[in-house]
């Protein structure tokens, strides 16, 4: 059995760990509220953008001449995957969930003989992917300096993707991120952004005849690059809310586990203290008896 001193030290160390996890939980909770607000505020923009694009693509008469960002290059040989993770750890399964989803997808692509290119956003994803897919990562972007997800950063990623598309480095682009459902649940998502998925347009097809100024093609070719940035920005917002939520529940668990451990150690400590006292008493009594 460990000595009394050792137990005392362990209890103290677990208690201080508990204090840290508790503080991290509170910080995450405060940040979560802000991130969630931001995610909600950002939603109207991306929804409106989507609506406009759906209306536009319905209005387009000549599908074959539609901008490449909408209709694709006609091939799907090279896939670009943008994997969005966090820059900081200690957030439960947040990063590994995205990575797992992405890895499954990668495995499938490679089985089908497609060429794979990866851009990682956030350093944690890069750390986890570079061991297996190191030679396929073409860029790693990290926004450690910026505190909150902002549109400026998203635009940087978006521009990079579009540049690579224009120089025909890939045919299909998919982004991976965690969608925020609630504090406990975040759903890893794979969303294809190039070519744009317009399959769900049938349900809210409006027969509104829009007037376009200038014509549809020109508007679309201006709008689609913006939409890419917007989708990436949306993913970043969802991701940051998910990260804080995931960290909060992870730290909550850690705090609870530390509490249980302190209880267990305290019982052990008291028991061995009692045993030591009993031992001493027996020694005194048996010593007195022998006289």
């Amino acid at each position, binding site marked *: 059995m460990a000595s009394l001193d050792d137990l005392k030290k362990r209890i103290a160390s677990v208690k201080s760990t508990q204090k840290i996890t508790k503080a991290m939980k509170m910080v995450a909770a405060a940040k979560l509220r802000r991130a969630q607000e*931001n995610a909600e*505020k950002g939603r109207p923009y*991306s929804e*409106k953008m989507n609506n406009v694009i759906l209306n536009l693509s319905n209005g387009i008469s000549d599908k074959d001449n539609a901008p490449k960002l909408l209709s694709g290059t006609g091939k799907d040989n090279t896939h670009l995957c943008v994997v969005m993770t966090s820059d900081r750890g200690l957030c439960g399964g947040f990063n590994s969930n995205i990575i797992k989803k992405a890895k499954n997808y990668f495995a499938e692509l490679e089985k089908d003989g497609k060429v794979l290119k990866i851009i990682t956003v956030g350093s944690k994803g890069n750390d986890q992917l570079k061991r297996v897919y190191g030679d396929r990562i073409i860029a790693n972007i990290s926004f450690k300096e910026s505190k909150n997800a902002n549109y400026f950063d998203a635009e940087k990623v978006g521009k990079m993707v579009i540049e690579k598309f224009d120089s025909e480095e890939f045919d299909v682009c998919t982004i991976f991120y965690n969608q925020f459902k609630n504090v406990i649940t975040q759903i890893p998502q794979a969303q294809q952004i190039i070519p744009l998925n317009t399959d769900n347009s049938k349900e809210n097809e409006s027969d509104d005849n*829009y007037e376009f100024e200038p014509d549809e093609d020109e508007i679309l070719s201006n709008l689609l690059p*913006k939409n890419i940035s917007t989708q990436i920005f949306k993913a970043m917002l969802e991701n940051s809310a998910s990260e804080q939520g995931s960290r909060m529940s992870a730290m909550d668990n850690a705090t609870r586990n530390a509490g249980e451990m302190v209880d267990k150690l305290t019982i052990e400590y008291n028991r061995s203290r009692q045993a030591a006292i009993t031992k001493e008493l027996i020694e005194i009594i048996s010593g007195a008896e022998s006289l």
Partner: protein
Amino acid sequence: MSEEFKIEIVNPEKSFLTKDDVLEVIIPAFEGEMGILKDHISIISFLKPGILKILSKSGDESFYVEDGIVEFKNNNLSILTSTIYKVTDLDKSKQQDLLKLAEEESNKKDINDQSRYLIDQKIDVLKSLN
């Protein structure tokens, strides 16, 4: 019958402004300024840098926008823009900053005619604000 309609301006970070007593909006559309009144036909267009004027019952407001998309449908005007400032909030130093950025960009060589046109517009508008 009332002559008012709704306007909603959103930027990527939040819903920037909503109003439902708007009488007329003058937008700097890509192919020239455009005034929108109630019961305008459904239209989609996009913006060039310029001044967006909102005339409403509760007072008139002007905004400086750099880009964006306009959608008008069923008397709802939605404007999506990534850069928008209220003109009265735009002080001298901010103006200068924006102007400097635009001028830097216009000095680059490898830009196409369309973006050159947009940047020149931007510079003109910013200068006219002074």
